[in-house]
Every structure is written in C-alpha cells, then in structure tokens.
C-alpha cells in the first residue's frame, strides 16, 4: 500500500485480533466511500513487511451506535473469518463513518434521533388503532363466512343447556300468548329482504323460546335461537306498550343472528389475541390480556349499534314503528335506576363506575333517541 492513493480521512489506530490468537496486532484503518456503503482498509503496522487488506461493505459487521450522547469505551468491528477490530476512539470512528458516506438504517436512526422515534411511534399507534377499529372487525367478518352453521348450532345447544341449568326456569306465559308472539315473529321474519342480509348465503334456523328468570331480557345465540324472558313481556305490558315494542327487540336479536355477531366475537377475540400478542407480547401479558378484554367489550357495543340499525331496517320493511321499542328500553332503564328492586334492597346507584368501557351496550338514552328517530335521521350506514 503506497501513500499515493491519498486516503479519504486520517487513519484510525486500532487493534486487530485475527481470530487465531488472542494476541492483538497494531493496525491502521481507513474508511472510504463505496457503492453500497463505506469500505474498510486495514494496514498492519507492526510487521516488518507492510501487509494490508481491503474489506468491502458487506464483509464487515458494522457496529450499531447505541446513543447519540454517550460514546462506548470501545467499538468492536467483526470481520467474519478475519477476526475483529477494537477501536479505542469511538468518536473518531463515528466521524470517519459519516465522512465515508455511511447511511444508518431506520432502527439506528430511531435509536439516536428522537424525532424519528416519535414519528415511528405515531405510525405504530395509528397502525394499532386502525387494526383495532377496522382490521379486526373486517378480518372477523371475512373469516366468519367460512364458519359452518352446524358448528354454530352445536355451540348454541351447549350454551342453551348451560344457561337453562344455571339461570333460567321454564316460562310461565300462557301458551296462547307465546303462540301469538311466535306468529308475529314468523311474520316479521318473512319481511326479511335479501338486501338486509349481511351474509346472503347464510340461512340460520330461527326458533323463539320463552324463559323465566334473569330479569327483563332477550338474547340471541348463533345459528338462530332467540330467547325472550317473561319479565320482558310483562314489562312491556306494564308500560302499556303493544307487541311492536317486543317485535322491535326481536328484530334487534335477529340482527345479531344475521350479522353473525356471536361467531364474529369469537373470531375477533382470536384475531385480537394473536395481533396484540405479537405486537404487545414484549410489554407484558397482563397489558395484552386486559386490552383484549376491554376491546372485546367495545366490539360488543359496536355489534349492538349494528343490530339496532338492522332492527330499524327490518321494522321499516315490516311497516311497524320502532318508537315503542325505544319506550320499552327507556322505561326499563328508569325502573332499574329510579326505584331499587325491593326484594334485594340494594343501593339505587349500581351502574358500573367505569361507565362505557365495562358495559356491553351503548348508553340507553342515545339508543332510544336513535330508534325513535327512525331510518331517515339515524346514523346507520345506508
């Protein structure tokens, strides 16, 4: 190596461990720009005959810079099979690298430049929100297409058996009253136009069951099993509301079935578990588990709104009013909050203090308002 090749920068002193002995050799290194990044020239100085070697950019393990402020005591540069270099002047090394046209990668820039880190943080947060808001529901809606009806039905059968055992008793409604409601329910189903169906090929087997217990309530199981409690029918009668109120509730539950909310919730939880596990697994399982539970509840509120919209559309198609259903909901929530149920003698204020985050349904007044406004003024996508 002659001096005629004019080095790009002042040579750096370094120790070279050649990978065969732990004894070091004194060397001088020079970095010079190359087509894909800096290349490294190595000159051994403590040998009688001056030996030198050039390492191309990808023959060198370039050490990362860990901090913009604090320099490490020593920088080591691995030369694959040719051992390693130890450099005692980290600052001079960084300057030589920059002078030789080194372009640090994204991770390196995030490590040493706060604005870059904040920029990626912003992208990551936006990405997580988008994943949660659109990605997961979309994936669940798509995946649910492939879930067979038989699986839903067998699941519902098991769930129904469990609920019957734990919470519910047989209905005490007169058989004629049950029959009258079932007839109207079938009539309502016949008004279910194909345009209302989220999954056109999905043909659930609808059954309406009556049970006692659990307070005024109605729920739908995947596959088409609907349950209405005696208490709900009685609450409607007590408020002097007609069957339109009850049919509105049933339309809402049909909405759950047609949108396959039960299945989607299972799939959404699965997708979320996988997604958050991948993304947040390194923070702690506690965080990712809590966020899965909370976001699961948020999805259920979304489902309720979707079902309300479906109920509005179905009731409009059946030419029935939705205002009675709104009155029923409002009346029920006032009973719950205003007067304490005498049997239990509990405090009147028993709504969850965590509010929206821990409730499965959207706030009742808003729902009632939307149902009263009907199709035209509602926020439903059309």
């Amino acid at each position, binding site marked *: 190596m002659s001096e005629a090749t004019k080095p790009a920068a002042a040579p750096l002193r370094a120790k070279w461990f050649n990978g065969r002995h732990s004894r070091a050799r004194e060397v001088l290194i020079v970095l010079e720009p190359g087509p894909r990044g800096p290349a490294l020239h190595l000159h051994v100085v403590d040998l009688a005959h001056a030996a030198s070697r050039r390492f191309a950019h990808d023959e060198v393990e370039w050490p*990362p810079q860990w901090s913009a402020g604090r320099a490490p005591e020593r920088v*080591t540069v691995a030369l694959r099979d040719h051992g*390693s270099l*130890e450099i005692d002047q980290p600052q001079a090394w960084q300057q030589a690298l920059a002078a030789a046209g080194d372009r640090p990668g994204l991770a390196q820039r995030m*490590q040493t430049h706060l604005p870059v880190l904040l920029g*990626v943080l912003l992208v990551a947060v936006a990405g997580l929100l988008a994943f949660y808001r659109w990605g997961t529901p979309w994936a669940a809606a798509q995946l649910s297409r492939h879930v067979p009806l038989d699986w839903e039905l067998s699941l519902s059968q098991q769930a129904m058996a469990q609920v019957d055992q734990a919470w519910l008793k047989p209905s005490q409604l007169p058989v004629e009253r049950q029959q009258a409601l079932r007839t109207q329910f079938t009539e309502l189903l016949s008004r279910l136009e194909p345009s209302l169906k989220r999954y056109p090929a999905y043909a659930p087997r609808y059954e309406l069951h009556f049970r006692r217990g659990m307070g005024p309530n109605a729920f739908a199981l995947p596959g088409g099993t609907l349950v209405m409690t005696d208490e709900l029918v009685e609450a409607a009668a007590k408020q002097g509301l007609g069957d339109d109120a009850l049919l509105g509730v049933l339309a809402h539950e049909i909405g759950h079935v047609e949108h396959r909310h039960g299945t989607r919730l299972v799939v959404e939880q699965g997708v979320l578990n996988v997604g958050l596990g*991948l993304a947040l697994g390194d*923070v702690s399982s506690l965080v990712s588990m809590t966020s899965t539970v909370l976001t699961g509840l948020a999805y259920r509120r979304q489902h309720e709104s979707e079902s309300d919209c479906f109920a509005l559309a179905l009731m409009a198609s059946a030419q029935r009013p939705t205002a009675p259903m709104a009155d029923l909901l409002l009346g029920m929530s006032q009973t719950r909050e205003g007067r304490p149920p005498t049997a239990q003698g509990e405090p009147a204020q028993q709504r969850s203090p965590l509010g929206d985050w821990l409730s499965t349904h959207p706030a009742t007044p808003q729902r009632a308002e939307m149902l009263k406004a009907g199709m035209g003024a509602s926020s439903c996508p059309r």
Partner: protein
Amino acid sequence: MDSTTQRHGIAAYRLRFSGSGGEYFRVWIVNLLLSIVTLGLYTPWARRRTARYFYDHTMIAGSPLEFTAPLRKMVTSFILFALLYVAYKIAAETGQDTVVSIFIIAAALLAPYIWGSAMRFRLASTRWRGLQLHFAARWRDVYVASWPIFLMAAVWVGITYGLDVLSADSVQPARAPGGRPGPAWPRVNAPMWGLIAIGLVLSVLCVIRVEFNYKSLLVLRAGIGKQHGRWKPVYSDFVRIWGATIVVFLAGAAVIFALFAGAAYAAWPLLRTIKGPSFLPLATILLILFLALVFFLALFLASAPARAYREARMFRLIWSNVGLSQIARFKCDLSHWAFVRLRIKNTLLTLLTLGFYRPFARVSEYRMKADAVTLHVKGGLDQLVGELVRQQDALGDALADMAGLDIVG
C-alpha cells in the same frame, strides 16, 4: 498488561457491564415499535439488536463480547418457526387431535436436539477478541444427558401400576360384578398418598438432575480456541439450592397469602354490593376473570423471590466453579439476598408501570450478575489459540428462545 500477567502468574480481571437502563430502554422501545409496525416480522432483528447491546457492553479484561450470528440464518429460522407455530395453532384450534399429538410428541423427542443446536448456535455466535466460542457436544451426548427424563417417565408408569394394585386391594368389595368401579373419583388411602409423594420427590430430583446434566454438558463441551471448559459443581450442590428455594417459596407464598387475605377481608363489604341480578352474567364472568387474574398475579408474586433466589444462587455456584482448562477460572461473589431485593423492586416497578420498567429491570439484574464475576487467568490471555467452527442451523435457536432458554445466567 501482557508482561505483568506473565510475571505474576495469575491476573484477575473483574467483568464489567457498561450499559445503561436508559439506553437499553431506547433499544427495547425501538424493537417494540418496529415489531408492531411489521406485525412481528422484525423479531429476529430485534433479538439480534438486544443480544448485541448486552454483548457490546459486557467487558471482559478490557474487551467487549461480540455477537456475530448471521442475520440470514436468524431470519429463515424465525420464519420456519413461525410457520410451525401457526400450523400447530391451526391444528389445535380446528381440533385435529392426531396432528396435535404428533406435534407434541415430536417436540418432546426433539427437545434435547433443539437445546443442543440452540447452544451450539449461541456459542458459535459469541466472540471475544476475535476468538469464537464453540460447543462440541455430539447429539448422542445430549440424549444421554437426558436420561432423568426417561427415568421420570418410568417412575410414573411404575406408580400408576402401583396405584392400580393398591386401589384394587382396598376397593375390592365396592366393585360391581360388571367390572367397572362405582365412584368416578377413586378413594385414595394412606399408602397411595405415600406412593404419590415418593413419585413427586423422585420427579423433582429428576428435574434437578436434568438441569445439572445439561449445565455441566454445556460447560464441559464449550470451548474457546483449543481450550475446553472445566466444571466442578456436583449434583448435591444443585439439590441443596433447590431445597432452599422451596423453603423461600413457601415463605413468600405465606406472606402473599396473608396480604391477600387481609385485602379480601377489607374489601368484602364492597364485593357484596357488586352482586345484583340485573347484570348478572357479565358481572359474574368479569368477577371470575378478575379472580383468576388475581390468583395468577399472587402466584407470580409469591414465586418471584424464590425464582430470583434460585437464579442468584445457581449463578454464583456455577460462575464460582467453572473455568477454561488449566489457564482460566471464574469467581463470583453475587449476594443472593441483594439479588432477591433487586428482583422484588423490579417486579413491583414493572407491574406499576404496566411493563415499561422491564428494560431497566433487565439491565439492573444483568449488571448485578456481570459485575459480580471475576476472571482469573494463569499466564497470558494471548496464549489462547482459536479455530473457527462452522455455524449450525439457527432453528434450534429460535425454538429455544421461545421456550425461554437463555445462555446468559
């Protein structure tokens, strides 16, 4: 430096960790963000950056360790591992029991192989002063070292057989002529309890033996240059540490139980008001979920001091009793109670900050361990002569990493 070590015969070098919690937090948050943005694909790069950070700042006799694993191998093995994992998950979710059991049996049979190749990869990726470490165990050695696992299986087969004999003795009259025993939950008498207790004790002893075998194999077959590792601890050292750990765990569990019992007593009136018929199913589910969470948290907290205690004592035992053939040996003066205190502080801070203290915790624990080790060298460090060995497949590394094996400590 060279001349002084030559003259006095033995030179002592204190290991030193020169990293900082703040810096590693930055490394960690960058890894986390890039993993989120790439949906987890960044994982091999992230692992490489983490390993490099710790290696770069671990100074031995003035020179840092170097992590030189080839990135391409880490990436391909990660993708392979991810595919296997997804295949297993799909099989498990869709209820294909045969496939799932094939996966589990294959994993169990391959576990020693995976461990061996993980260690081989890790050591071959570690350099110091340009010299590469290597792990020279053959597969046969690793499987032979696994004998306690097979012994454990044999013990349980024997105990199952013994239980059958004992229960046949005692339940003889209760048995219906049809041949099927009446009660679903078999009655367990005193000799049977004794047999189960013996089985448990033997199992624990087998587990300790496996740990001992693997650790000694790792040290004895590891080498740098042409020098091989030296190993002095004996099996009874390990048994003593495990025994003391069980005592520490029971003490920790008693403290945590007392704390939770007190908290539950104080919170009882509050809990009673939550119960109500109007939102019964959801509240019950949430309550059960909450209680399960509290239980696991309690178990985690109760076992944290014991796990730290075992880790510290094991670290000290090993790093006080290993060396490199006749030329180097390590000494360690890690105080295990100081380490337990540090772990308790770290655990609480990690919980309070929802996990964001973890990088600081990791750095402080690593620092305490690394700074406690001293290297004593006879003659000069320059005597070490290296030879390069070929890199193995990195799949074992990826699998072992997921299983939580770690070479450091």
